[in-house]
Protein backbone atom coordinates (compact mmCIF):
# COMPACT_ATOMS: atom_id res chain seq x y z
CA UNK A 1 0.00 0.00 0.00
CA UNK A 2 1.16 3.52 -0.73
CA UNK A 3 2.23 5.87 2.02
CA UNK A 4 -0.46 8.08 3.48
CA UNK A 5 -0.41 11.69 2.52
CA UNK A 6 0.89 13.52 5.62
CA UNK A 7 -1.14 16.64 4.86
CA UNK A 8 -4.34 14.66 4.69
CA UNK A 9 -3.51 12.80 7.84
CA UNK A 10 -2.96 16.12 9.63
CA UNK A 11 -6.28 17.31 8.22
CA UNK A 12 -8.14 14.36 9.68
CA UNK A 13 -6.53 14.92 13.07
CA UNK A 14 -7.78 18.50 13.05
CA UNK A 15 -11.24 17.38 12.02
CA UNK A 16 -11.28 14.74 14.74
CA UNK A 17 -10.21 17.30 17.30
CA UNK A 18 -13.02 19.63 16.22
CA UNK A 19 -15.60 16.90 16.58
CA UNK A 20 -14.25 15.87 19.97
CA UNK A 21 -14.55 19.50 21.10
CA UNK A 22 -18.08 19.73 19.68
CA UNK A 23 -19.18 16.63 21.58
CA UNK A 24 -17.41 17.06 24.90
CA UNK A 25 -16.78 20.78 25.40
CA UNK A 26 -20.45 21.46 26.30
CA UNK A 27 -20.16 18.96 29.16
CA UNK A 28 -16.97 20.55 30.40
CA UNK A 29 -18.52 23.99 30.21
CA UNK A 30 -21.67 23.08 32.15
CA UNK A 31 -19.56 21.25 34.74
CA UNK A 32 -17.20 24.16 35.26
CA UNK A 33 -20.10 26.64 35.40
CA UNK A 34 -21.79 24.62 38.11
CA UNK A 35 -18.80 25.19 40.44
CA UNK A 36 -18.61 28.96 39.90
CA UNK A 37 -19.93 31.60 42.28
CA UNK A 38 -22.90 33.63 40.96
CA UNK A 39 -20.78 36.67 40.00
CA UNK A 40 -18.20 34.45 38.27
CA UNK A 41 -20.85 32.59 36.28
CA UNK A 42 -22.12 35.73 34.58
CA UNK A 43 -18.71 37.38 34.34
CA UNK A 44 -17.98 38.50 30.80
CA UNK A 45 -15.58 37.60 29.27
CA UNK A 46 -16.08 34.19 30.88
CA UNK A 47 -13.23 32.36 32.62
CA UNK A 48 -12.39 28.85 31.52
CA UNK A 49 -11.88 27.51 35.07
CA UNK A 50 -13.86 28.55 38.15
CA UNK A 51 -11.74 31.33 39.77
CA UNK A 52 -13.11 30.28 43.14
CA UNK A 53 -14.69 26.87 43.56
CA UNK A 54 -18.02 26.71 45.35
CA UNK A 55 -20.70 24.13 46.11
CA UNK A 56 -23.38 26.74 46.70
CA UNK A 57 -25.18 25.97 43.42
CA UNK A 58 -25.57 22.36 44.49
CA UNK A 59 -26.73 23.40 47.95
CA UNK A 60 -29.32 25.65 46.36
CA UNK A 61 -30.39 22.84 44.04
CA UNK A 62 -31.11 20.62 47.02
CA UNK A 63 -32.82 23.42 48.93
CA UNK A 64 -35.08 24.62 46.13
CA UNK A 65 -36.05 21.30 44.49
CA UNK A 66 -37.03 17.84 45.65
CA UNK A 67 -33.97 16.35 43.98
CA UNK A 68 -33.79 13.22 46.19
CA UNK A 69 -37.41 12.31 45.52
CA UNK A 70 -37.07 13.01 41.77
CA UNK A 71 -34.08 10.70 41.76
CA UNK A 72 -36.01 8.01 43.63
CA UNK A 73 -38.90 8.26 41.18
CA UNK A 74 -36.60 8.06 38.17
CA UNK A 75 -34.76 5.06 39.59
CA UNK A 76 -37.99 3.25 40.42
CA UNK A 77 -39.51 3.83 36.98
CA UNK A 78 -36.31 2.94 35.16
CA UNK A 79 -35.63 -0.24 37.14
CA UNK A 80 -39.22 -1.52 37.05
CA UNK A 81 -39.51 -0.83 33.33
CA UNK A 82 -36.19 -2.50 32.63
CA UNK A 83 -37.16 -5.63 34.55
CA UNK A 84 -40.50 -5.96 32.75
CA UNK A 85 -39.18 -5.08 29.31
CA UNK A 86 -36.30 -7.54 29.50
CA UNK A 87 -38.61 -10.34 30.62
CA UNK A 88 -41.37 -9.76 28.08
CA UNK A 89 -39.04 -8.95 25.18
CA UNK A 90 -36.83 -11.99 25.75
CA UNK A 91 -39.76 -14.40 25.85
CA UNK A 92 -41.30 -12.84 22.75
CA UNK A 93 -38.00 -12.70 20.86
CA UNK A 94 -37.38 -16.37 21.61
CA UNK A 95 -40.76 -17.29 20.18
CA UNK A 96 -40.36 -15.12 17.07
CA UNK A 97 -36.77 -15.91 16.16
CA UNK A 98 -36.50 -19.46 17.46
CA UNK A 99 -39.84 -21.17 16.94
CA UNK A 100 -41.83 -21.89 13.81
CA UNK A 101 -45.56 -21.19 14.11
CA UNK A 102 -48.42 -19.85 12.00
CA UNK A 103 -48.62 -16.07 12.01
CA UNK A 104 -44.97 -15.56 12.95
CA UNK A 105 -44.27 -12.95 10.30
CA UNK A 106 -47.54 -11.12 10.89
CA UNK A 107 -46.78 -10.81 14.58
CA UNK A 108 -43.24 -9.66 13.84
CA UNK A 109 -44.55 -6.98 11.47
CA UNK A 110 -47.15 -5.83 13.99
CA UNK A 111 -44.44 -5.58 16.61
CA UNK A 112 -42.21 -3.48 14.38
CA UNK A 113 -45.28 -1.46 13.43
CA UNK A 114 -45.85 -0.50 17.04
CA UNK A 115 -42.29 0.73 17.23
CA UNK A 116 -42.77 2.78 14.11
CA UNK A 117 -45.91 4.41 15.50
CA UNK A 118 -45.04 7.90 16.82
CA UNK A 119 -45.28 7.68 20.60
CA UNK A 120 -46.41 11.29 20.96
CA UNK A 121 -49.70 10.31 19.30
CA UNK A 122 -50.39 8.00 22.21
CA UNK A 123 -50.03 10.72 24.82
CA UNK A 124 -53.67 11.79 24.85
CA UNK A 125 -55.41 8.40 24.59
CA UNK A 126 -52.97 6.68 26.92
CA UNK A 127 -53.71 9.37 29.48
CA UNK A 128 -57.35 8.31 29.24
CA UNK A 129 -56.43 4.64 29.64
CA UNK A 130 -54.43 5.54 32.77
CA UNK A 131 -57.42 7.42 34.15
CA UNK A 132 -59.54 4.31 33.61
CA UNK A 133 -56.93 2.11 35.27
CA UNK A 134 -56.66 4.58 38.16
CA UNK A 135 -52.94 4.99 37.52
CA UNK A 136 -52.71 8.75 36.90
CA UNK A 137 -50.26 10.28 39.35
CA UNK A 138 -48.85 6.82 40.06
CA UNK A 139 -45.33 5.96 38.95
CA UNK A 140 -46.75 2.73 37.53
CA UNK A 141 -48.43 4.71 34.76
CA UNK A 142 -44.98 5.57 33.43
CA UNK A 143 -43.74 2.02 33.84
CA UNK A 144 -46.69 0.78 31.80
CA UNK A 145 -46.15 3.38 29.06
CA UNK A 146 -42.37 2.98 28.89
CA UNK A 147 -42.50 -0.80 28.48
CA UNK A 148 -44.61 -0.16 25.39
CA UNK A 149 -41.96 2.13 23.92
CA UNK A 150 -38.95 -0.03 24.71
CA UNK A 151 -40.12 -3.64 24.32
CA UNK A 152 -40.65 -3.80 20.51
CA UNK A 153 -37.19 -2.39 19.75
CA UNK A 154 -35.70 -4.72 22.35
CA UNK A 155 -37.29 -7.73 20.65
CA UNK A 156 -35.67 -6.65 17.40
CA UNK A 157 -32.29 -6.11 19.07
CA UNK A 158 -32.39 -9.64 20.53
CA UNK A 159 -32.47 -11.21 17.09
CA UNK A 160 -28.73 -11.17 16.44
CA UNK A 161 -27.99 -12.52 19.92
CA UNK A 162 -30.50 -15.37 19.63
CA UNK A 163 -29.31 -16.34 16.19
CA UNK A 164 -25.73 -16.59 17.42
CA UNK A 165 -26.71 -19.52 19.68
CA UNK A 166 -26.49 -22.82 17.76
CA UNK A 167 -29.75 -24.76 17.60
CA UNK A 168 -27.75 -27.94 18.30
CA UNK A 169 -27.26 -26.82 21.89
CA UNK A 170 -30.99 -26.87 22.49
CA UNK A 171 -31.39 -30.19 20.70
CA UNK A 172 -28.65 -31.67 22.83
CA UNK A 173 -30.36 -30.42 25.99
CA UNK A 174 -33.64 -31.94 24.78
CA UNK A 175 -31.96 -35.30 24.15
CA UNK A 176 -30.56 -35.18 27.66
CA UNK A 177 -34.14 -34.88 28.85
CA UNK A 178 -34.31 -31.17 29.71
CA UNK A 179 -37.76 -29.61 29.46
CA UNK A 180 -38.32 -26.35 27.62
CA UNK A 181 -38.04 -24.08 30.62
CA UNK A 182 -34.96 -25.89 31.89
CA UNK A 183 -33.33 -25.40 28.49
CA UNK A 184 -34.30 -21.74 28.45
CA UNK A 185 -33.06 -21.06 31.96
CA UNK A 186 -29.91 -23.18 31.98
CA UNK A 187 -28.74 -23.12 28.36
CA UNK A 188 -30.16 -20.12 26.52
CA UNK A 189 -30.29 -17.36 29.11
CA UNK A 190 -26.67 -17.65 30.26
CA UNK A 191 -25.53 -17.40 26.62
CA UNK A 192 -27.85 -14.47 26.04
CA UNK A 193 -26.27 -12.34 28.75
CA UNK A 194 -24.72 -9.77 26.37
CA UNK A 195 -28.10 -9.35 24.67
CA UNK A 196 -29.95 -9.07 27.97
CA UNK A 197 -27.49 -6.45 29.15
CA UNK A 198 -27.87 -4.50 25.93
CA UNK A 199 -31.65 -4.26 26.07
CA UNK A 200 -31.53 -3.56 29.80
CA UNK A 201 -29.22 -0.58 29.31
CA UNK A 202 -31.14 0.60 26.26
CA UNK A 203 -34.36 0.53 28.27
CA UNK A 204 -32.81 2.20 31.27
CA UNK A 205 -31.47 5.10 29.22
CA UNK A 206 -34.68 5.54 27.23
CA UNK A 207 -36.73 5.70 30.41
CA UNK A 208 -34.23 7.96 32.14
CA UNK A 209 -34.53 10.54 29.37
CA UNK A 210 -38.30 10.23 28.67
CA UNK A 211 -40.06 13.56 29.04
CA UNK A 212 -43.53 14.12 27.48
CA UNK A 213 -45.37 11.28 29.21
CA UNK A 214 -43.71 11.96 32.54
CA UNK A 215 -44.76 15.60 32.25
CA UNK A 216 -48.46 14.70 31.99
CA UNK A 217 -49.00 11.48 33.96
CA UNK A 218 -47.56 12.64 37.29
CA UNK A 219 -49.28 15.51 39.04
CA UNK A 220 -47.59 15.78 42.46
CA UNK A 221 -44.33 17.67 42.19
CA UNK A 222 -42.58 15.42 44.71
CA UNK A 223 -43.34 12.26 42.69
CA UNK A 224 -41.94 13.58 39.42
CA UNK A 225 -39.00 11.92 37.74
CA UNK A 226 -35.81 13.91 37.24
CA UNK A 227 -36.25 15.45 33.77
CA UNK A 228 -39.70 16.81 34.59
CA UNK A 229 -38.86 17.86 38.13
CA UNK A 230 -35.78 19.73 37.00
CA UNK A 231 -37.41 21.16 33.87
CA UNK A 232 -39.40 23.32 36.29
CA UNK A 233 -36.26 25.18 37.37
CA UNK A 234 -35.70 26.29 33.76
CA UNK A 235 -38.81 28.41 34.00
CA UNK A 236 -38.52 29.48 37.62
CA UNK A 237 -34.88 30.44 37.77
CA UNK A 238 -34.50 31.64 34.22
CA UNK A 239 -31.23 33.45 34.69
CA UNK A 240 -29.69 31.62 37.65
CA UNK A 241 -27.25 29.82 35.37
CA UNK A 242 -25.19 28.40 38.22
CA UNK A 243 -28.23 26.62 39.63
CA UNK A 244 -29.35 25.42 36.20
CA UNK A 245 -25.86 24.11 35.52
CA UNK A 246 -25.88 22.23 38.82
CA UNK A 247 -29.26 20.76 37.84
CA UNK A 248 -27.96 19.61 34.45
CA UNK A 249 -24.89 18.07 36.06
CA UNK A 250 -26.95 16.12 38.57
CA UNK A 251 -29.35 14.96 35.87
CA UNK A 252 -26.53 13.68 33.69
CA UNK A 253 -24.36 12.26 36.45
CA UNK A 254 -26.30 9.04 37.20
CA UNK A 255 -26.29 7.92 33.57
CA UNK A 256 -22.67 8.96 33.10
CA UNK A 257 -21.69 6.80 36.09
CA UNK A 258 -23.73 3.91 34.73
CA UNK A 259 -22.15 4.40 31.32
CA UNK A 260 -18.64 4.36 32.77
CA UNK A 261 -19.26 0.78 33.88
CA UNK A 262 -21.35 -0.63 31.06
CA UNK A 263 -20.82 1.76 28.15
CA UNK A 264 -18.45 -0.50 26.24
CA UNK A 265 -20.77 -3.52 26.44
CA UNK A 266 -23.74 -1.37 25.53
CA UNK A 267 -22.18 0.10 22.40
CA UNK A 268 -20.96 -3.34 21.33
CA UNK A 269 -24.35 -4.90 21.99
CA UNK A 270 -26.30 -2.14 20.31
CA UNK A 271 -24.24 -2.35 17.16
CA UNK A 272 -24.36 -6.16 17.12
CA UNK A 273 -28.11 -6.04 17.48
CA UNK A 274 -28.61 -3.32 14.90
CA UNK A 275 -26.23 -4.81 12.35
CA UNK A 276 -27.52 -8.32 11.92
CA UNK A 277 -26.00 -10.08 8.85
Amino acid at each position, binding site marked *: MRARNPLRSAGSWVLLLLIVVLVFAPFYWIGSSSFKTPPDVIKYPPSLFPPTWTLQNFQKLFASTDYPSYLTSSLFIALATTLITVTLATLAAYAIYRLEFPGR*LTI*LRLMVGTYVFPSILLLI*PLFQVMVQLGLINSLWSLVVANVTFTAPFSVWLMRAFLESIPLELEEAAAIDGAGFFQTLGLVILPLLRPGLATIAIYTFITVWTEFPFASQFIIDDAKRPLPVGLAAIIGQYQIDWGLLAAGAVFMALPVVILFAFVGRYFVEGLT*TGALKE
Partner: protein
Amino acid sequence: MRWRTSFLAYLLLAPLLIWLAVTIAVPVGYLVYLSFTDMGIFGTSATFSGLENFKDVLRSERFWQAGRNTLVWIVGNGLAQVTLAFAVARLLYRRSALTNFLQVWIILPWVVPGVAAVIIWRWMLSSIGIVNFGLEATRLVDSPVSFFAKPSIAMATTIAINSWRWFPLLAVILLAALRNIPSELREAAMVDGATENQTWWYIVLPLLRPVLYVLGLLGTLWSANIFDVIWLLTKGGPSGGTTTLPVYLYEEAFARFSLGTSAAGSVVMAVFVLGFVMLFLRYGWGRELGGRR
Protein backbone atom coordinates in the same frame (compact mmCIF):
# COMPACT_ATOMS: atom_id res chain seq x y z
CA MET B 1 -45.08 -31.77 18.13
CA ARG B 2 -45.85 -28.94 15.70
CA TRP B 3 -48.99 -28.16 17.64
CA ARG B 4 -47.04 -28.05 20.87
CA THR B 5 -44.43 -25.72 19.42
CA SER B 6 -47.10 -23.32 18.22
CA PHE B 7 -48.82 -23.36 21.56
CA LEU B 8 -45.55 -22.66 23.32
CA ALA B 9 -44.80 -19.78 20.94
CA TYR B 10 -48.16 -18.13 21.57
CA LEU B 11 -47.73 -18.64 25.29
CA LEU B 12 -44.36 -16.86 25.21
CA LEU B 13 -45.72 -14.05 23.07
CA ALA B 14 -48.95 -13.54 25.00
CA PRO B 15 -47.67 -11.27 27.79
CA LEU B 16 -46.10 -8.75 25.42
CA LEU B 17 -48.95 -8.89 22.91
CA ILE B 18 -51.55 -8.29 25.61
CA TRP B 19 -49.46 -5.45 27.01
CA LEU B 20 -49.19 -3.80 23.60
CA ALA B 21 -52.89 -4.31 22.93
CA VAL B 22 -53.82 -2.48 26.12
CA THR B 23 -51.33 0.33 25.63
CA ILE B 24 -51.47 0.78 21.86
CA ALA B 25 -54.51 -0.86 20.24
CA VAL B 26 -57.01 0.41 22.82
CA PRO B 27 -55.58 3.95 22.89
CA VAL B 28 -55.48 4.18 19.11
CA GLY B 29 -59.13 3.14 19.00
CA TYR B 30 -59.93 5.76 21.60
CA LEU B 31 -57.94 8.37 19.68
CA VAL B 32 -59.99 7.73 16.55
CA TYR B 33 -63.18 8.01 18.63
CA LEU B 34 -61.99 11.29 20.17
CA SER B 35 -61.23 12.74 16.77
CA PHE B 36 -64.97 12.61 15.97
CA THR B 37 -66.01 14.39 19.19
CA ASP B 38 -65.79 17.92 20.49
CA MET B 39 -64.11 17.07 23.79
CA GLY B 40 -62.09 19.97 25.23
CA ILE B 41 -60.46 18.94 28.50
CA PHE B 42 -60.15 15.42 29.87
CA GLY B 43 -63.23 14.17 31.61
CA THR B 44 -65.59 16.74 30.11
CA SER B 45 -68.59 15.50 28.16
CA ALA B 46 -68.08 14.73 24.51
CA THR B 47 -70.65 14.85 21.78
CA PHE B 48 -70.29 13.45 18.31
CA SER B 49 -69.25 16.18 15.92
CA GLY B 50 -68.67 14.26 12.71
CA LEU B 51 -65.82 15.48 10.56
CA GLU B 52 -65.72 18.96 12.13
CA ASN B 53 -62.31 18.39 13.79
CA PHE B 54 -60.77 17.15 10.58
CA LYS B 55 -62.11 20.16 8.71
CA ASP B 56 -60.75 22.45 11.42
CA VAL B 57 -57.35 20.81 11.32
CA LEU B 58 -57.02 20.70 7.55
CA ARG B 59 -58.12 24.32 7.25
CA SER B 60 -55.87 25.50 10.03
CA GLU B 61 -52.80 27.43 8.91
CA ARG B 62 -51.06 26.37 12.16
CA PHE B 63 -51.39 22.71 11.25
CA TRP B 64 -49.87 23.15 7.80
CA GLN B 65 -47.15 25.38 9.21
CA ALA B 66 -46.37 22.56 11.65
CA GLY B 67 -46.35 20.11 8.74
CA ARG B 68 -43.89 22.25 6.77
CA ASN B 69 -41.74 22.72 9.86
CA THR B 70 -41.71 18.96 10.39
CA LEU B 71 -40.37 18.45 6.87
CA VAL B 72 -37.66 21.08 7.41
CA TRP B 73 -36.89 19.48 10.76
CA ILE B 74 -36.55 15.98 9.33
CA VAL B 75 -34.46 17.03 6.32
CA GLY B 76 -32.24 19.37 8.37
CA ASN B 77 -31.61 16.79 11.06
CA GLY B 78 -31.03 14.09 8.48
CA LEU B 79 -28.43 16.09 6.56
CA ALA B 80 -26.59 17.34 9.64
CA GLN B 81 -26.56 13.98 11.39
CA VAL B 82 -25.60 11.88 8.38
CA THR B 83 -22.74 14.24 7.50
CA LEU B 84 -21.36 14.31 11.03
CA ALA B 85 -21.90 10.59 11.56
CA PHE B 86 -20.07 9.65 8.36
CA ALA B 87 -17.20 11.99 9.18
CA VAL B 88 -16.86 10.52 12.67
CA ALA B 89 -17.20 6.92 11.51
CA ARG B 90 -14.43 7.42 8.96
CA LEU B 91 -12.17 9.26 11.36
CA LEU B 92 -12.54 6.56 14.00
CA TYR B 93 -12.19 3.71 11.53
CA ARG B 94 -8.55 2.94 12.34
CA ARG B 95 -8.32 1.22 15.72
CA SER B 96 -6.24 2.84 18.41
CA ALA B 97 -6.58 3.47 22.12
CA LEU B 98 -8.06 6.88 21.35
CA THR B 99 -10.63 5.67 18.82
CA ASN B 100 -11.65 2.79 21.09
CA PHE B 101 -12.30 5.27 23.87
CA LEU B 102 -14.18 7.65 21.60
CA GLN B 103 -16.27 4.86 20.08
CA VAL B 104 -17.90 4.42 23.50
CA TRP B 105 -17.92 7.92 24.96
CA ILE B 106 -18.93 9.85 21.88
CA ILE B 107 -22.47 8.60 22.49
CA LEU B 108 -22.64 10.66 25.70
CA PRO B 109 -24.91 13.43 24.31
CA TRP B 110 -27.52 10.79 23.47
CA VAL B 111 -27.38 9.29 26.95
CA VAL B 112 -28.16 12.42 28.97
CA PRO B 113 -31.77 13.61 29.28
CA GLY B 114 -32.96 16.16 26.73
CA VAL B 115 -33.62 18.58 29.57
CA ALA B 116 -29.92 18.55 30.49
CA ALA B 117 -28.97 19.12 26.84
CA VAL B 118 -31.37 22.04 26.70
CA ILE B 119 -29.89 23.68 29.80
CA ILE B 120 -26.35 23.17 28.48
CA TRP B 121 -27.06 24.76 25.12
CA ARG B 122 -29.27 27.58 26.32
CA TRP B 123 -26.46 28.56 28.65
CA MET B 124 -23.78 28.31 25.98
CA LEU B 125 -25.89 30.22 23.46
CA SER B 126 -27.14 32.95 25.81
CA SER B 127 -26.15 36.57 25.17
CA ILE B 128 -23.36 36.28 27.76
CA GLY B 129 -22.57 32.68 26.80
CA ILE B 130 -19.33 31.18 25.63
CA VAL B 131 -20.44 30.89 21.99
CA ASN B 132 -21.26 34.57 21.67
CA PHE B 133 -18.01 35.37 23.45
CA GLY B 134 -16.12 33.30 20.92
CA LEU B 135 -17.91 34.93 18.00
CA GLU B 136 -17.24 38.42 19.33
CA ALA B 137 -13.64 37.72 20.28
CA THR B 138 -12.90 36.54 16.75
CA ARG B 139 -14.76 39.59 15.34
CA LEU B 140 -17.23 37.40 13.49
CA VAL B 141 -20.09 39.44 14.95
CA ASP B 142 -20.29 42.91 16.51
CA SER B 143 -23.09 42.29 18.99
CA PRO B 144 -24.35 39.07 20.60
CA VAL B 145 -26.40 36.81 18.31
CA SER B 146 -29.90 35.96 19.56
CA PHE B 147 -30.10 32.33 18.59
CA PHE B 148 -33.83 31.98 19.28
CA ALA B 149 -35.15 35.37 18.19
CA LYS B 150 -36.14 34.83 14.56
CA PRO B 151 -38.11 31.78 13.37
CA SER B 152 -35.54 30.65 10.79
CA ILE B 153 -32.56 31.08 13.13
CA ALA B 154 -34.44 29.41 15.97
CA MET B 155 -35.21 26.44 13.71
CA ALA B 156 -31.58 26.14 12.61
CA THR B 157 -30.36 26.36 16.23
CA THR B 158 -32.86 23.77 17.41
CA ILE B 159 -31.89 21.40 14.58
CA ALA B 160 -28.22 21.87 15.45
CA ILE B 161 -28.79 21.05 19.12
CA ASN B 162 -30.92 18.02 18.34
CA SER B 163 -28.33 16.79 15.83
CA TRP B 164 -25.65 17.18 18.48
CA ARG B 165 -27.68 14.80 20.63
CA TRP B 166 -28.40 12.20 17.99
CA PHE B 167 -25.53 12.05 15.50
CA PRO B 168 -23.27 10.06 17.85
CA LEU B 169 -25.73 7.17 17.88
CA LEU B 170 -25.68 7.02 14.07
CA ALA B 171 -21.91 7.41 14.06
CA VAL B 172 -21.40 4.47 16.38
CA ILE B 173 -23.67 2.21 14.35
CA LEU B 174 -22.07 3.28 11.07
CA LEU B 175 -18.61 2.76 12.50
CA ALA B 176 -19.44 -0.81 13.50
CA ALA B 177 -20.92 -1.39 10.06
CA LEU B 178 -17.74 -0.09 8.41
CA ARG B 179 -15.58 -2.36 10.51
CA ASN B 180 -17.79 -5.32 9.61
CA ILE B 181 -16.76 -4.94 5.98
CA PRO B 182 -13.73 -7.15 5.38
CA SER B 183 -10.74 -4.90 4.67
CA GLU B 184 -9.57 -7.39 2.01
CA LEU B 185 -12.28 -6.07 -0.30
CA ARG B 186 -10.82 -2.57 -0.27
CA GLU B 187 -7.24 -3.80 -0.37
CA ALA B 188 -7.96 -5.95 -3.40
CA ALA B 189 -9.49 -3.00 -5.22
CA MET B 190 -6.50 -0.84 -4.34
CA VAL B 191 -4.14 -3.49 -5.69
CA ASP B 192 -6.17 -3.27 -8.90
CA GLY B 193 -5.43 0.45 -8.99
CA ALA B 194 -8.44 2.04 -7.31
CA THR B 195 -7.74 5.16 -5.25
CA GLU B 196 -8.69 5.19 -1.58
CA ASN B 197 -11.62 7.49 -2.26
CA GLN B 198 -12.87 5.23 -5.02
CA THR B 199 -12.88 2.23 -2.70
CA TRP B 200 -15.03 4.11 -0.19
CA TRP B 201 -17.43 5.28 -2.84
CA TYR B 202 -17.76 2.13 -4.98
CA ILE B 203 -17.17 -0.66 -2.49
CA VAL B 204 -17.93 0.46 1.03
CA LEU B 205 -21.00 2.59 0.38
CA PRO B 206 -22.93 -0.06 -1.59
CA LEU B 207 -22.17 -2.60 1.13
CA LEU B 208 -23.58 -0.22 3.72
CA ARG B 209 -26.93 -0.07 1.97
CA PRO B 210 -28.82 -2.42 4.31
CA VAL B 211 -27.68 -0.42 7.35
CA LEU B 212 -28.48 2.87 5.65
CA TYR B 213 -31.97 1.63 4.86
CA VAL B 214 -32.64 0.74 8.48
CA LEU B 215 -31.14 3.97 9.77
CA GLY B 216 -33.00 5.99 7.14
CA LEU B 217 -36.33 4.63 8.27
CA LEU B 218 -35.70 4.62 12.02
CA GLY B 219 -33.84 7.93 11.97
CA THR B 220 -36.64 9.68 10.13
CA LEU B 221 -39.22 8.35 12.55
CA TRP B 222 -37.05 9.17 15.56
CA SER B 223 -36.67 12.74 14.27
CA ALA B 224 -40.33 13.17 13.43
CA ASN B 225 -41.20 12.08 16.95
CA ILE B 226 -38.92 14.49 18.85
CA PHE B 227 -40.78 16.64 21.31
CA ASP B 228 -38.87 17.43 24.50
CA VAL B 229 -35.89 19.32 23.08
CA ILE B 230 -38.04 21.59 20.91
CA TRP B 231 -40.61 22.23 23.60
CA LEU B 232 -38.04 23.07 26.25
CA LEU B 233 -35.90 25.20 23.96
CA THR B 234 -38.52 27.29 22.21
CA LYS B 235 -42.04 26.16 23.18
CA GLY B 236 -42.50 25.98 19.39
CA GLY B 237 -41.85 29.70 18.91
CA PRO B 238 -41.11 32.34 17.88
CA SER B 239 -44.48 32.74 16.12
CA GLY B 240 -44.78 29.01 15.54
CA GLY B 241 -41.46 28.89 13.70
CA THR B 242 -40.26 25.72 15.46
CA THR B 243 -43.67 24.09 15.99
CA THR B 244 -43.38 20.63 14.48
CA LEU B 245 -46.35 18.26 14.45
CA PRO B 246 -45.68 16.69 17.88
CA VAL B 247 -45.41 20.18 19.41
CA TYR B 248 -48.61 21.24 17.65
CA LEU B 249 -50.50 18.18 18.91
CA TYR B 250 -49.24 18.70 22.46
CA GLU B 251 -50.15 22.37 22.38
CA GLU B 252 -53.68 21.71 21.08
CA ALA B 253 -54.32 19.14 23.77
CA PHE B 254 -52.62 20.57 26.84
CA ALA B 255 -52.31 24.31 26.24
CA ARG B 256 -55.35 25.09 24.08
CA PHE B 257 -57.51 22.37 25.67
CA SER B 258 -58.92 21.10 22.43
CA LEU B 259 -58.58 17.34 22.65
CA GLY B 260 -60.83 16.71 19.68
CA THR B 261 -58.68 18.79 17.33
CA SER B 262 -55.50 17.29 18.71
CA ALA B 263 -56.88 13.78 18.19
CA ALA B 264 -57.90 14.58 14.61
CA GLY B 265 -54.45 16.06 13.96
CA SER B 266 -52.92 12.89 15.41
CA VAL B 267 -54.94 10.73 13.04
CA VAL B 268 -53.77 12.85 10.10
CA MET B 269 -50.15 12.62 11.25
CA ALA B 270 -50.50 8.84 11.68
CA VAL B 271 -51.69 8.64 8.07
CA PHE B 272 -48.65 10.64 6.90
CA VAL B 273 -46.30 8.41 8.87
CA LEU B 274 -47.96 5.25 7.59
CA GLY B 275 -47.68 6.55 4.03
CA PHE B 276 -43.99 7.24 4.52
CA VAL B 277 -43.34 3.80 5.98
CA MET B 278 -45.22 2.07 3.15
CA LEU B 279 -43.20 3.97 0.56
CA PHE B 280 -40.02 3.09 2.35
CA LEU B 281 -40.86 -0.59 2.62
CA ARG B 282 -41.80 -0.72 -1.06
CA TYR B 283 -38.23 0.11 -1.90
CA GLY B 284 -36.93 -3.14 -0.58
CA TRP B 285 -36.46 -2.82 3.11
CA GLY B 286 -39.05 -5.46 4.02
CA ARG B 287 -36.62 -8.33 3.59
CA GLU B 288 -34.21 -6.92 6.14
CA LEU B 289 -36.77 -7.48 8.83
CA GLY B 290 -38.08 -10.92 7.98
CA GLY B 291 -35.63 -12.91 9.99
CA ARG B 292 -35.14 -16.64 9.57
CA ARG B 293 -34.45 -18.89 12.44
